[in-house]
């Protein structure tokens, strides 16, 4: 559905993105993950035909963003980082206006607006002026305008930005409800959101795509070394030495604690089964065995670290 090949964009000589290539299949939910200023919004703006690339090629639904933006605009719904709202309009009149702007059939405008208001939980504020809405509601109206014409491709730039925890859960459910019917590309710097809502992650750093894949596949690819935390009730004599003797364990650190003892193990590959067996055989009273790094967060830091080092090196 979406293909990007060697996309680059420069602003006054500064490269915002540099040679970004990826493919997104129909029905996928893909997340662009990166720090602020990494180039996520620039990629989304190019896909949304808001911006032309300096070089490279991008197609959405088989249409080129360079030569056929009007065809792409019929396919996409776009929510920028700041929702494009007219404060003086009511929610109903705004969504009706956007529906007409997006070529919704005249007879279907009212029903399309009704459906999207249901989806975005906007029924209670239909007659309210947009200027009177809270940030959360404004974001929901922004989502609603992106969905009102039932587009094939939905592009969401930081959709949960500034939302409270309840609103985040609602937004997450809304995005998940789009799975299968729409191709969704969203950006976020909040790692847990990407993990929960996306089938696949594209990690962007300093304008470059540094990794792509599911969280699990990225971890298996990138985490050649893994830090394990081993929690036990007691520490039998020689446990540290026996752990260190496991093939793949490079370092063992003992961390005394209250109501339990902890070992931190630096490993190469997944040796959790062997570690558990050694702890049980030694009679240590196994309480838990977990990865020391926090999933995607650890992965993300690891992915961008080489680039940071390059920048400072």
């Amino acid at each position, binding site marked *: 559905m979406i293909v990007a090949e060697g996309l680059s964009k420069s602003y006054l000589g500064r490269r915002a993105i540099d040679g970004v290539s990826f493919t997104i299949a129909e029905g996928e939910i893909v997340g662009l993950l990166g720090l602020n200023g990494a180039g996520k919004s620039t990629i989304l703006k190019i896909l949304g035909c*808001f*911006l*032309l690339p300096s070089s490279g090629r991008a197609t959405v639904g088989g249409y080129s963003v360079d030569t056929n933006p009007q065809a792409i*605009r019929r396919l996409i719904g776009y929510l920028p980082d*700041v929702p*494009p*709202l*007219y404060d003086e309009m009511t929610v109903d009149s705004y969504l009706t206006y956007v529906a007409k*702007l997006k070529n919704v059939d005249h007879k279907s405008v009212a029903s399309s607006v009704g459906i999207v208001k249901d989806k975005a939980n906007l029924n209670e504020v239909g007659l309210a002026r947009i200027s009177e809405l809270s940030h959360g509601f404004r974001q929901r109206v922004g989502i609603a305008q992106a969905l009102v014409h039932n587009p094939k491709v939905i592009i969401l730039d930081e959709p949960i930005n500034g939302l409270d925890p309840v609103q985040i859960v609602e937004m997450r459910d809304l995005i998940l409800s789009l799975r299968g019917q729409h191709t969704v590309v969203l950006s976020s710097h909040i790692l847990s959101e990407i993990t929960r809502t996306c089938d696949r992650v594209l990690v962007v750093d300093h304008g470059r795509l540094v990794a792509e894949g599911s969280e699990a596949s990225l971890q298996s690819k990138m985490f050649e070394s893994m830090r394990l935390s081993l929690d036990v009730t007691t520490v039998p004599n020689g446990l540290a030495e026996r752990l260190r003797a496991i093939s793949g364990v490079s370092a063992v650190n003992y961390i005394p604690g209250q109501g339990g003892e902890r070992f931190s193990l630096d490993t190469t590959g997944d040796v959790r089964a062997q570690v558990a067996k050694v702890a049980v055989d030694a009679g240590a009273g196994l309480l838990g065995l977990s990865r020391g790094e926090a999933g995607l967060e650890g992965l993300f830091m690891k992915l961008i670290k080489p680039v940071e080092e390059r920048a400072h090196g």
Partner: protein
Amino acid sequence: MGKCLLVAGRELRAYFSTWMGYVICAAALFIEGLLFNAYAVGNQPKVSADVLADYFYFASGMTMVAGVFLAMRLLAEEKQNGTLVLFYTSPISERQIVYGKFLSALCFSLIIQLLSLYMPGLVFMVGKVSLGHLAAGYLMLTLLGACAISISLFASAISPNQLVAGVTGALFLVTFLILWMVADVVSPPLKELFGYLAIHNRHFVPFAQGIVHTRDVIYYGSVVVFFLECSVRALEARRWQG
């Protein structure tokens, strides 16, 4: 055309749902009223046709000022509020956006003119002027207003915010206004060129006297189309800039 009218309708409603439209309308009518009483009617006896010509002279100035104020927000405000992205990600052309915006400001300008109709109406009722004179004067106000709006709309397309758009629009308009002065001090062929390009002097006078020349209508129409097309190009260029 449908999208053009859709944009125009929303913009026109925006004038009425904010203070901006009412303030511009009230200010224009108030100042026109003052000038009508103080100068067009005045204390000295005048023939009705002269009163009407003087009224159109002052009203033309107010129409141009109102045009700048009406149009300066049209695109600059969208840029300021981040709503321009809605157009760029919707199936609507830059031309439809620009012409829709222009149409809304022109309609609002016509509403102001309609509300000012009581002043020449008084001259018509108590004096001796022809309907043709009245119609020619209002055609001139419409064309001049359209010119001011298109010039200010272009300024709005190239400016980052409303204030800069207003100043830039006024600058362009004043330049076009005073070209006749420049024409007086330069040699041919620039003399003829500047004289022809001046927006008010040569093209305005016949209208105010109740005479409509096709060449003047073509001139004003050309200025409008030129600046509207410049605005279209400016919007198209934004896709390169971001």
